[in-house]
């Protein structure tokens, strides 16, 4: 609560929040308006008297048509979706099992392994992409979706494990012990008792892992080369920029449409996403 007069609420709260919102969202507005702006208006210098930045009276779908007609955009969308879904599934499977083992089972080396996985969680992709590109070539999976499906889990699994450990730790041990007394094996107790309770955590890990793999760039840039294998971010970069020429209209249309799937997933699961985000930093 800000105490006192209405002007204080405006000065200390409403105006700063409004400015933050405008600055954070303006690039998206710019993407949308550029997508529908005809080339004639698009390439009008900002000094021109008839420069109308915030609106267009002649909206066009030419850029969208170019994007769908002249590039493999739909294919990139499909590639990205396929890779993100499979990589997320693998990572979730591994991460949930590993998180369970590290947080609820006692075995020698648990602490060390937990620390090691936390450390790999902090390894940025840019540290290893060059030796990895050599290895991918060696495994003969370069320029196939598998190059990404198998490498994305390296940053998704540590994250999922770390997040799930937090959720598993919060579930009381007694719950499992009851099931064990009733005759369930350890594995059954995990599968039927602990995992269902941890569903919110699994959902958070899922949403977060999906957006991370949708947004990944450097591995996709380095490991894929043919246009029909590319993901959206890489396809847009390599096919809509020819030398120094930027096809700004289709570029912005691609950026807009390429952002929509994550935005939709995110908008349905904001709460899960936020708890995944904050869980991942708090541990």
């Amino acid at each position, binding site marked *: 609560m800000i105490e006192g007069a209405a002007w204080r609420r405006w000065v200390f709260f409403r105006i700063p929040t409004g400015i933050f919102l405008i600055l954070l969202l303006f690039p998206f507005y710019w993407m949308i308006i550029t997508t529908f702006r005809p080339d004639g208006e698009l390439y009008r210098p900002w000094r021109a008297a008839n420069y109308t930045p915030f609106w267009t009276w002649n909206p066009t779908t030419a850029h969208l048509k170019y994007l769908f007609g002249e590039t493999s955009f739909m294919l990139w969308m499909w590639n990205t979706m396929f890779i993100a879904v499979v990589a997320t599934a693998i990572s979730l499977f591994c991460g949930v099992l590993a998180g369970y083992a590290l947080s609820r089972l006692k075995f020698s080396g648990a602490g060390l392994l937990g620390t090691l996985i*936390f450390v790999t969680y902090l390894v940025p992709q840019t540290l290893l992409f060059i030796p990895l590109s050599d290895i991918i070539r060696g495994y003969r999976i370069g320029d196939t979706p598998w190059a990404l499906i198998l490498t994305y889990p390296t940053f998704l699994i540590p994250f999922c494990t770390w997040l799930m450990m937090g959720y598993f730790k919060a579930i009381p041990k007694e719950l499992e012990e009851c099931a064990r007394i009733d005759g369930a094996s350890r594995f059954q107790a995990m599968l039927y008792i602990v995992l269902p309770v941890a569903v919110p955590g699994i959902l958070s890990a899922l949403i977060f892992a999906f957006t991370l793999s949708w947004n990944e760039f450097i591995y996709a840039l380095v490991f894929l080369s043919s246009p029909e294998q590319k993901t959206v971010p890489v396809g*847009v970069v390599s096919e809509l920029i020819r030398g120094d020429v930027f096809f700004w209209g289709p570029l912005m249309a691609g950026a807009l449409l390429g952002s929509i799937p994550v935005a939709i997933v995110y908008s349905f699961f904001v709460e899960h996403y936020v708890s995944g985000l904050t869980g991942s930093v708090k541990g």
Partner: protein
Amino acid sequence: MAATTAGTGEIVIAKPRWRPLESEGNLALLLLLPTLALLGLFIAYPFIKGILLSVQDTRVGIDGKFVGFDNFARLATDPIFHAVVWNTIFYTVVTTIFKLILGLWLAILLNRDFKFKAVTRAFILLPFIVPTVLACFAWKWMFDPTFSVINWGLYKLGLITGAINWLGDGDLAMLSIIIVNIWRGVPFFAISLMAGLQTISPDLQEAAAIDGAKPWQRFIHITWPLLLPVTMVVVLFSVIQTFADFQIVYVMTGGGPANATHLFATYAYQLGIGTGLLSQGAAVSLAMFPILFAIVIFQLMYIRRVETR
């Protein structure tokens, strides 16, 4: 196995079924196996491979031979690499300071009840969730010297008289990528810090307010110390990501003009993938490792200290 001898008149005791997964150690091993296999193949092995590459002179398609520390010695005298080190440190420090200040401010603004709170919070995270590369194109377009809406805005506000060539001048290009990085990072800071703020009991604030503490005094003496553990983790996490950043620079400037915005990752990419000098690129990437390692150790120690308190 349960070798029972029936029929000899002995009392047969059915041995318990062999259930290896009842041993916590065995079950843990089984559960961890897929993770360890993937991380071993695609993290541990590449790491070793990277070290090997960095002491050879491998190029794409040409197997290298051992050259010792030649690649690192070359970096030590490479003026571009010197610029890279300085750029990366400058970029990381400046963006982190601004992300922390602005993120904390935004977190405090959002940490209250108001109309449309949920919607506002959802919108604020958008820069963080959309693909960075795609958002960067919007920024690159906004910074375009001839068609820049930013120039138009500044001109209309009377702040500038001529065109600003944002990405064409070294210092301005650095400023541009810093702005974009802050734009992308502030939501992450704000939402994480807001989660930290929500764990602080409002009773403490009220008690201090009753005792006559001014808002800024309450912030310094109550909010900030209680928020510090979350802040530390968020900052260290962000420092690692920023230090190893690639996408923003790759899209906005490609490291230029005249290497003014090259970071470790973009320079490694240019050498290793662009030019095909795998070994030299790997050496540039690995040069990040000591600093990243120090940050990670510091973070682990800090977490341990907080946890044992």
